[in-house]
């Protein structure tokens, strides 16, 4: 038997409290993040049972899904949203959980603030009632989204019951072409695997592309793991990881740091360890990507045409329904399609690096008059960096404004809704029907593609604009 262990095995196995014969494992959870939407019923559940939160120090609450992205200093207008926010605050206070509400300097999207404050650590198990919890896998943690019943389990017992997923390694070798970002790498992989291609698996990303990638980029890739059906994705911790984690508020110090480092360094997958499935891609094949349909697997290189129904896997009727919703036709080129909205933000691309990329392309240009642009930082810390680094003045000069942090148009629970029939180039993670507002049409893309669309008013290859710069 192969005794070589994978990164995933090491972290998982060391968190199993009990293995149930023919059943799931009882998995201990190190870090639990909660937000206002998926937690109220869970808190209600433990109240009804008459029990307390077992480890309040391991749970962290932030308000993000429902929050407005302008005038955050004013009371929230929508009564239902205001009620959910109040419940989160009350529940956090009642059970002794740290709570970063609206206006708090640490407030932001749950998957952006976790890493920023060192809550996210290598080798940890991290859960949250939000499927993009997979983001934290960038640090070599096992991180995944859970349902509200499971949120209740974690509050009550710091454990959940999970059947161990199968393992998959996705290698991307070589170096990325100019204009190709981590978002494109992820959209490319999903387009190859489809949205269900990794269902039942936990993914490890390996290869030169991920070694070369910044922590921000790794987070973008791991974030999108769920969009290929995977439970989560992870990347082996290395010097970059340790450098990022060091010195943050919840990061261990002194002796505890040394101990943690010894554990973290022992985590990477051993040479010769086996995966249930292994796939390798070549970085040179990846172009800036854009989606044309209503799931994240419906993506193509920006210079390609929309595939013919017969050429795609799955039901032809479902495919045609999707194109009909988007009002696109088979064979259409995406380039030059007019767009109405641009959304830069979300836990996928709402970090400082994303704003740097976006700004680099709009610098010295002007926002197209037909475009409404929502630039939403992932957290106050990102917002502050945008200002401190001087990006804000460049953005302002180019006709853009910055909004306040939150999930915003990623899921359109607040007022940031794309109107029916309108097209939005979005750096978020889902292009489902109505995701960004009833009837909205979403084109998922990188911050560079979003920037190119924002200044030209249509789908544009960012490399064309970059070429002008270097010419």
């Amino acid at each position, binding site marked *: 038997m192969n005794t070589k262990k994978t990164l995933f095995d090491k972290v998982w196995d060391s968190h199993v409290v009990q293995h149930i014969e023919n059943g799931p494992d009882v998995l201990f959870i190190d870090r639990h993040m909660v937000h206002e939407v*998926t937690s109220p019923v869970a808190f209600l559940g433990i109240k009804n049972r008459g029990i307390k939160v077992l480890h309040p120090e391991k749970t962290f609450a932030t308000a993000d899904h429902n929050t407005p992205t302008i005038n955050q200093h004013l009371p929230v207008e929508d009564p239902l949203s205001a009620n959910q926010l109040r419940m989160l605050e009350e529940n956090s206070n009642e059970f002794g959980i740290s709570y970063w509400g609206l206006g708090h300097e640490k407030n932001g999207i749950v998957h952006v603030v976790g890493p920023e404050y060192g809550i996210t650590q290598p080798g940890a198990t991290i859960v949250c009632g939000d499927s993009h919890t997979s983001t934290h896998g960038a640090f070599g943690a096992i991180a995944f989204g859970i349902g509200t019943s499971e949120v209740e389990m974690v509050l009550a017992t710091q454990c959940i019951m999970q059947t161990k997923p199968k393992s998959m390694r996705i290698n991307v070798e070589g170096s990325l072409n100019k204009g190709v970002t981590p978002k494109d790498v992820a959209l490319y992989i999903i387009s190859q695997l489809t949205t269900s291609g990794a269902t039942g698996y936990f993914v490890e990303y390996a290869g030169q592309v991920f070694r070369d990638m910044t922590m921000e980029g790794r987070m973008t890739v791991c974030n999108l793991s769920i969009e290929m059906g995977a439970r989560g994705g992870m990347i082996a911790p290395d010097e970059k990881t340790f450098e990022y984690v060091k010195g943050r508020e919840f990061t261990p110090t002194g002796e505890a740091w040394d101990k943690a480092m010894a554990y973290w360094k022992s985590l990477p997958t051993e040479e010769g360890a086996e995966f249930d499935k292994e796939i390798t891609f070549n970085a040179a094949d990846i172009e800036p990507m854009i989606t044309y349909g209503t799931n994240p697997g419906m993506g193509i290189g920006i210079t390609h045409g929309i595939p013919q129904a017969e050429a795609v896997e799955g039901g032809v009727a479902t495919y045609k329904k999707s194109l009909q919703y988007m009002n696109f036709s088979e064979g259409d080129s995406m380039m030059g399609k007019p767009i109405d909205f641009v959304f830069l933000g979300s836990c996928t691309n709402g970090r400082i690096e994303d704003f740097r990329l976006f700004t680099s392309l709009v610098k010295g240009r002007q926002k197209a008059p037909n475009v409404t642009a929502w630039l939403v930082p992932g957290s106050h810390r990102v917002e502050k960096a945008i200002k401190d680094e001087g990006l804000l003045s460049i953005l302002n000069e180019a006709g853009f404004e910055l909004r306040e942090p939150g999930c915003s148009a990623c899921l359109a629970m607040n007022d940031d809704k794309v109107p029916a029939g309108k097209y939005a180039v979005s750096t978020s993670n889902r292009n489902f029907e109505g995701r960004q507002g009833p009837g909205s049409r979403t084109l998922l893309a990188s911050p560079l593609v979003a920037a190119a669309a924002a200044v030209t008013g249509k789908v544009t290859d960012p490399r064309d604009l970059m070429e002008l710069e270097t010419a």
Partner: protein
Amino acid sequence: MAYDKFNILKSSAVPLPIENVDTDQIIPARFLKATERKGFGDNLFRDWRYNSDGTEKKDFVLNNPTYSGRILVGGKNFGSGSSREHAAWAVYDYGFRCVVSSFFADIFRNNCLNIGVLPVQVSAEFLDKIFKAIEADPKASFEVSLPEQTITIESTGESESFDINAYKKANMLNGFDDIDYLLNIQDEIKEFAADRPL
């Protein structure tokens, strides 16, 4: 909160032969603002079911009185997308106790099991047979037996077995939930927690 027991369900079924039905279709995000688990059935498939002015879309299956029953039959990759348990609550609250598909997204499947909705995964061929049976007779009856782990098309007697792990099966048969189990092994959890560095 313990939930309804599930044993044998005999019912007609509602067909939704669409692939990749995501949780944003099952329940759009704007309906997730409740702080109690109530009333989500009204907004099940909201944007497929109603026009923006609130009138019913006549051609959507839930608005067609020909179809009814406690079994929802969906196309491949049912429940992809977000972790919102609200999607499973909406399915349950509307009155479904069983969802059949040839493939389920992970989190949705887990969420269903956690609230007492049985996800039944069948082969693509059998799914097709189910759709055909409903097409032939909208009132066609199906038997879902959890003890036997089978689903049967009653008119033809054709049957297929499905997987469920023994632990979850016992839970559903008895209406227990995971928290009951976890609370019972609290001492073991506390001992384990004492050794954790974080």
